[in-house]
């Protein structure tokens, strides 16, 4: 993926560039708002990682300028203002995702991959998705595995749908919470693990090949 990073903290930027590079992404870095905006309008990127607080110009203003020019490049906002209200503000301003500092690199990577893929998949978001012998009908809210229907609660279905849509990519616990629950909140414990455990029980039990995998320290992935 071709990524533009606009971030003034040089240490953090170096770390992000290195981390993304290891996963095979090409990252260009600008350390101030004006250069960043110029670069973003000159070239096409798969994704822009944008710090909210930049010297010279506010990250949200860059975002507004991009969206005003009908540039729909996915934007992931980074901010030291990590609280829920700031997150809501960032998403309302046209951001596609929002990550509070400090963050684990794995969390950023997972979000970057999901965001980059979202555009490619946006065509068949409501269709039927097949992964091995699992068939998920996103529109019809039905799940079958090996031809047998699986009964899921609405919440379990939404978790599975999120995993299925991002098949092969890591989905972090925080991403699942944001996607599946309609509240912006900070769970005190890994409460989501129990839900995954129930889902896994229904989807994987009795099948030789498990589909839902745990990625240690990060989240979950659904793959063959």
């Amino acid at each position: 993926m071709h990524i533009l990073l606009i971030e003034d903290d040089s240490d953090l930027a170096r770390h992000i560039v290195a981390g993304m590079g290891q996963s095979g992404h090409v990252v260009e870095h600008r350390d101030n708002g004006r250069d960043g905006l110029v670069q973003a309008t000159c070239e096409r990127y798969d994704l822009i990682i944008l710090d909210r607080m930049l010297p010279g110009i506010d990250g949200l203003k860059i975002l507004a300028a991009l969206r005003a020019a009908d540039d729909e490049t996915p934007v992931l906002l980074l901010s030291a203002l990590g609280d829920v209200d700031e997150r809501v503000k960032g998403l309302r301003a046209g951001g596609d995702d929002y990550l509070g500092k400090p963050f684990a690199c794995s969390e950023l990577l997972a979000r970057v991959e999901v965001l980059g893929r979202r555009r490619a998949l946006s065509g068949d978001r409501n269709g039927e998705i097949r992964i091995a012998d699992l068939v998920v009908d996103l529109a019809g809210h039905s799940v079958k595995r090996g031809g047998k229907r699986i009964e899921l609660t609405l919440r379990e279905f939404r978790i599975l749908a999120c995993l299925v849509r991002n098949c092969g990519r890591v989905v972090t616990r925080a991403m699942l919470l944001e996607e599946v629950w309609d509240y912006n909140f900070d769970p005190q414990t890994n409460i989501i693990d129990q839900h995954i455990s129930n889902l896994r029980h229904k989807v994987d039990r009795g099948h030789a090949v498990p589909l839902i995998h745990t990625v240690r320290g990060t989240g979950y992935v659904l793959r063959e």
Partner: protein
Amino acid sequence: MTPGFLTSLSFRLAIAYAGLLCLSMALLSAAYYWIAIARPLDEIRAQVNREAQVLAQTYIVDGDAALVAALEKRSQSSGSRQAFHAFISPEGRRVSANLPSWPARPVRGWFSIEADIYREGDEVDFSALSRDRIFRNGARLIVGRNAEEIEDREEVLANALPWLLGLTILFGIAGGLFMSRAITRRLDTISATARSVIAGNLGGRVAIAGKGDDFDRLAGTINVMLARNQELFEAVRRVSDSAAHELRSPLARLIARLETLEVNIGHRPELEAAIAEAHRLQSIFNALLRIARIEGGRYDGCFSDVDLAALAADAVELYAPLAAEKGVEFLIEADVGIATLADRDLVFQALVNLLDNAFKHTPAGGCIRVKVHYRDDEPVIDVIDSGPGLQPGDAERITERFFRGEGTQGLPGEGLGLSLVAAIVHLHGARLVFHTLNQGLHAQMAFMARP
């Protein structure tokens, strides 16, 4: 009127004020009586006594004619007070008199006789303060002098005194009440401010009436004290807030370096533990900053109509798998349509924290109940667990940052969850109450009734 009214300073002041007013009125009346009535009357009596003595001597020594002449002369003299007399012979015949009438029988001591005189077509009122003298031969002499205006004064005073007394008491009580009301009002302003500061409004100040009086000076002193306290309190809070904020960036870099190291040298248990510890620090800082933002009013939330029953159902659904895994009975009783004006993300967070607390302390086989209902128009969310409850004295401290009650050793958590709940509840103008039950803890969030 408050129950303590009779013992209040203002009531005692009112009574003292009325009492003093009555006393000074009584003193004033007594002084007036003494100066304007008692003393002039005494002077007249002394004068009449002297004259009667001289006249009696004249009669005894020089006889009838001399007395009549002396009496005529006396009545003609233009003294300051009109002189009156009547001389009756031993046979009861009137010899000389300028009194229109007198008592038929002699009277002991002093008496007053009406002695109105027509002079130049005008009636002039006189009242003769007189005394009788009976001579050995049976002759009778009445001598007196006018005391009309003094007697009038006495009468006026006697008539006025009940009114004066009544009005004095009335004004005394009214004035006392007015005074005590004024004092009470000023004191109430001060104690209302103190209560609001106690309730957490550190910016509360006593309103100054601008009269420059003692109360204004007291209010000024109290305000200076409150400002100083607020300064100190905020300095402490700023230090802890900025410590958390300033430590975040180095912590972020630390985590980044550790992660790079992990990528370079692979998984090592020590490294993993270090990363986990760094993440724990990060979550503590985040929680502290979040509480500080909400408490400091810097949280830019979005208040809207929130269906608390639906919100509670979502929270219960979130925790249902954990309840099943722990073997805890988990129930919800929610009335339909319990709504309040709130920030739904924050209220959900508060409920999640309360549930988290309940699950931490409820043993397997226990029971956790969530109730959403109206209590006296107030929307209320109850979280009732069957854990060990609180130790006595913990209820006040449970929402303090980093406070962890007895029996929480070994349980996960930093003692910040309930502080966040308290901050959220406070932001909503709601109340958070903890009751220890026979078996368990009852946490209650009571929101404001919608107008």
